[in-house]
């Protein structure tokens, strides 16, 4: 059993230059209270890894607005003009990765795999500098595993064993990044007593989670 901590306490764990994976698709399923606490703490030089950079003022868009981020690894930045401006001005490095490849690399990083072979990106700029492996008559790119110092998760319910559930399309990257970071911090909408979440409903087993953030007041 684990005692929940405040978002501000969780943010003190994150140092300048850390790499963070985050859940969220256009900000849906992003742990907003943790993001606010990191902005408040004024961390600098972060590498952030997730699906997209949402919009200014939303999700990780807040980290970008506040100048916390040096390097972004995502599949899409089209909805955030601040990301594009900082990329063009050279303030921030942006690495674009196809969405299926990104989630596959994170899964590989968290599940002991040496990488994935994917047909995605063959014949495009994505293949540049990568090993192409032909097997079963088809060409694949070898895409390497991805891990981070921290995973910031938005869950629906948690119990004090840190078992987690998710809701609908707020699930997205969350259960996968829980595998792939040295320190996993979960921000649930609700914390329930141990035993309330049926075992079949648990999407992330609590053993993967290091810190639980208090429920919203």
């Amino acid at each position, binding site marked *: 059993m684990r005692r929940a901590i405040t978002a501000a306490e969780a943010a003190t764990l994150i140092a300048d230059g850390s790499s963070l994976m985050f859940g969220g*698709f256009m900000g849906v399923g992003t742990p907003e209270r943790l993001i606010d606490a990191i902005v408040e703490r004024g961390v600098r030089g972060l590498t952030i890894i997730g699906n997209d950079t949402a919009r200014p003022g939303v999700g990780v868009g807040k980290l970008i607005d506040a100048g916390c981020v040096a390097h972004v690894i995502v599949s*899409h930045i089209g909805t955030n003009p601040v990301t*594009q401006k900082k990329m063009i001005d050279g303030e921030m490095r942006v690495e674009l990765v*196809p969405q299926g*490849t990104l989630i596959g690399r994170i899964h590989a990083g968290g599940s002991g795999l040496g990488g994935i072979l994917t047909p995605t990106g063959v014949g495009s700029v994505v293949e540049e500098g990568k090993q192409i492996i032909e097997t079963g008559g088809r060409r694949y790119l070898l895409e390497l595993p991805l891990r981070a110092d921290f995973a910031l998760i938005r869950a629906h319910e948690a119990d004090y064993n840190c078992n987690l559930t998710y809701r*609908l399309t*707020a*699930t*997205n990257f969350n*259960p996968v990044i829980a595998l792939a970071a040295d320190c996993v911090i979960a921000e649930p909408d609700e914390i329930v007593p141990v035993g309330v979440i049926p075992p079949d409903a648990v999407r992330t087993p609590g053993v993967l989670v290091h810190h639980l953030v208090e429920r919203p007041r």
Partner: protein
Amino acid sequence: MDAPGMDPKEIIARRVALELRDHSLVNLGIGLPTMVARYVPAGMDVAFQSENGIIGFGAPPPHGMEDPNLTDAGGGFISALPGAASFDSLMSFALIRGGHLDMTVLGGLQVDATGRLANWMVPGKLVPGMGGAMDLVAGARRVIVAMQHSAGGKSKIVPELTLPPTADRRVSLVVTDMAVIEPTDGGLVLRERAPGVSVAEIVAATGATLLIIGEVPEMPIQTTKPLASLPV
């Protein structure tokens, strides 16, 4: 040159909808492709996937009934139809890449004479990122490109791509406001004309060579009423 009273995008969406098959799983790109869901033929059972993790979504709920955890790939509110399933991004892209997705409809910036698609960036101008587009083109059984025939007076169907390709795969079909074109081993075959558009007009408006085999029929566009329960 367009059908009387019909918006070019509506022509495209209505024609693409005729490619839908019963009991199929379909992914619609953001923008014009999303309009295809308005014209699902009556009685047809099509499951729509949104890449952010749901199959079986419906129209945006009434104002005040939105669920912040239920959105489409553009971040807009949607509803879940009875029987819908939600899942994480690993499952979503296993479905997309693994041969489980019957069809995807994507927008396009260019298609070339070999049927290759460019739809994710314009160097120096527009760098939104590929999102799920490269996975969709690599993995869907059929890839349908739904786009306007020309942009700014220039044909989007070109001899060779000048924009970065999305994949090395040949797309299955290209549907524009002027024509239906099928890329084949021999080249781009003109299959259909939009209502009221002549073969000569299409050839004149197309940058790449079109193969014309016999009589080219008009698009058999239906006038199916939009289904209120489907996303728009």
